[in-house]
């Protein structure tokens, strides 16, 4: 049966600010949260100004979930995300420069301009899967990575994230069942932001919580408050440790709200005003964590100002990097379909110029 947030919290050895994290780690987590929030806000602004091509899928309001679960991973653990989870990938280690180069379709993007926006990933570096739209198509793939770790006796784990709506797809069931049968080292995360595009939970799922579906697979299921990044982190940490130690998969449902529309074009009129206000006012995961660290004296306003500065500077640098990165050259459109032509083993042409 799924454990409630409070039951869960009890079980966590709460440190000075909950969850045993060093001051450095706490500050790093704050940085990630603020970076993701800033990135999300600025990219939307650029999109609205018509300066950003393609689409954006804002993860605002869900940083507690995204940063919390990804922060529990070690560098060689792998992460499988959806379109919505860029904050998790940034937390896991994607570089702003290359992320922005991808959004602008440039050769220095992680996909060399072949894919856009959050259909991104960095397998060789940050160990993140390159996002595929079809939901939740990466869940079964995570089973395979986890199987590899288990077979080689490595303590590594695979973590996969998908949204509430994606859980109604058959692949979700198959992957959980497979992982449970073989005790695969996987952490299944559901970012329950209460909406699947315009569709509310009650038209997607026939039970009150997604966490309780863990019982159908005989694995632990926990529901946490996405507004509380430490609660999310602790649950993820526990799941990662259990999986790495051979304890098998865990299902974590982290509840928050999608503050923005499904994508940049969507005003999300279907989300009740009060629901949105309540979350923005009282359940802002970034603000709550920043306030917590201030209250507990972990950071002061000087450090916060410096942090804001640093983030703004990094974003500017990323933006500049992206604008100066060349477009892929047309001639290479047929390259790299298979390993045979060595396209990906070598360096691509940089003759594409910066004007499309």
């Amino acid at each position: 049966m799924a454990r409630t947030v409070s039951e869960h919290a009890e079980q966590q050895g709460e440190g000075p600010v909950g969850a045993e994290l060093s001051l450095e780690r706490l500050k790093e987590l704050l940085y990630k949260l603020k970076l993701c929030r800033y990135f999300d806000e600025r990219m939307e602004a650029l999109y609205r100004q018509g300066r950003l091509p393609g689409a954006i899928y804002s993860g605002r309001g869900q940083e507690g979930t995204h940063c919390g679960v990804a922060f529990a991973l070690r560098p060689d653990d792998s992460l499988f995300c959806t379109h919505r989870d860029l904050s998790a990938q940034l937390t896991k280690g994607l570089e702003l420069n290359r992320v922005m180069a991808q959004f602008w379709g440039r050769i220095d993007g992680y996909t060399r301009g072949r894919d856009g926006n959050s259909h991104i990933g960095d397998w060789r570096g940050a160990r993140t899967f390159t996002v595929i739209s079809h939901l939740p198509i990466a869940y079964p793939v995570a089973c395979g990575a986890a199987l590899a770790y288990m077979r080689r006796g490595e303590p590594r784990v695979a973590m996969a994230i998908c949204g509430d709506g994606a859980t109604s797809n058959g692949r979700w069931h198959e992957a959980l069942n497979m992982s449970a049968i073989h005790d695969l080292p996987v952490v299944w995360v559901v970012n329950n932001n209460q909406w699947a595009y315009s569709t509310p939970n009650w038209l997607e799922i026939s039970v009150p919580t997604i966490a309780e579906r863990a019982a159908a697979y005989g694995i632990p299921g926990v529901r946490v408050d996405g507004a509380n990044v430490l609660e999310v982190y602790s649950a993820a940490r526990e799941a990662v440790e259990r999986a790495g130690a051979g304890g098998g998969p865990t299902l974590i449902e982290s509840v928050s709200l999608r503050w923005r529309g499904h994508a940049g074009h969507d005003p999300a009129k279907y989300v009740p005003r009060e629901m949105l206000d309540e979350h923005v006012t009282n359940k802002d995961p970034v603000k709550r964590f920043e306030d917590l660290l201030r209250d507990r004296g972990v950071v002061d306003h000087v450090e916060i100002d410096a942090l804001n500065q640093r983030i703004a500077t990094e974003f500017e640098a990323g933006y500049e990097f992206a604008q100066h990165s060349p477009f892929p050259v047309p001639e290479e459109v047929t390259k790299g379909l298979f390993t045979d032509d060595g396209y990906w083993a070598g360096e691509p042409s940089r003759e594409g110029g910066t004007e499309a």
Partner: protein
Amino acid sequence: MSQVVEAGAAGHGAEPRGKRTESGEATYLIAIAEALWEEMERDERVFLLGEDIGAYGGAFKVTEGFIERFGPERVMDTPIAEETIVGTAMGAAMEGFRPVAEFQYADFMTSGFDEIVTALARYHYRTGVPLPVVLRGPSGGGVRASSFHSINPEPWFAHAPGLKVICPAFPGDAKGLLKSAIRDDNPCVFLEHKWIYRRVKELLPEDPDFLVPIGAADVKREGTDVSIVTYGAMVHRALEAAGELADRGVSAEVVDLRTIQPLDTATVLRSVEKTSRALVLSESHRFLGVGAEVAAMIAEAGFEHLDAPVTRLAPPNVPVPFSPTLEDAFLPQVADIVGAVDRLGSW
């Protein structure tokens, strides 16, 4: 379910016809909405199901205002479960309904592939049970949406026995063909082209029973020197190219297939017989794309008439890329069409 209705973003039960331009023209998207609306008014067995088609009106707003007029039972929001969307449509059709399922993008038809090609498509041949099901969704590229929101699945479905596959290029054809598909007793895959949605407008016949027959190609421009056989968004590229060619004294005929399965071979062959030269243009990529079937058919049945090899023009066999430089290189451009016609002419 009242809250769903209240949440209705826009439309509020207004007829799509109201969204025509002052001059009475309808975009391709509005024409499709009109077809759905009129058939739902005409036949209560027709209902819609799909993701976010209710209060939200669909990702592309095709069904905007429908739930306010027809209610959530006939404009049904489904979970993200394409196999089950198709299965549900099939079962309801077996029990006398005429479901029209929207795929948020035609790309996600692969997520329901087995129910489409194995269950739905083969069932009538095995049982004789009529299956009035329409599966519709936005296909095609040219909008910088990369490989998961740009594919052309028509070759996969046209190869699956038991499906009619429709790919209109103009508002009138889209409306007339969609109405025919909804009235057809067989499963139809109706592939709309998202690049055309809001770019192409035209005046539509007022007759609510105006239908375009499934399986009939249409010559969109008459010509004598070469036949450009194509469909979907490429029809518009072909017409543009034909214009340029005309300025240079080359008379190109543009044949719009409109339906891929069944294929109107007679109209295609008649054109080739007249021009003796055929350029088969398709947005589905080259290897086993629609162009392969059309070219093979012409090469076999039109052999005597050909003064030059049937030539295919199509994207290369790679996923649709995101970056504008790559997508432009991927998709056949007007210049590519003109160039291919020139090469054909110099035979």
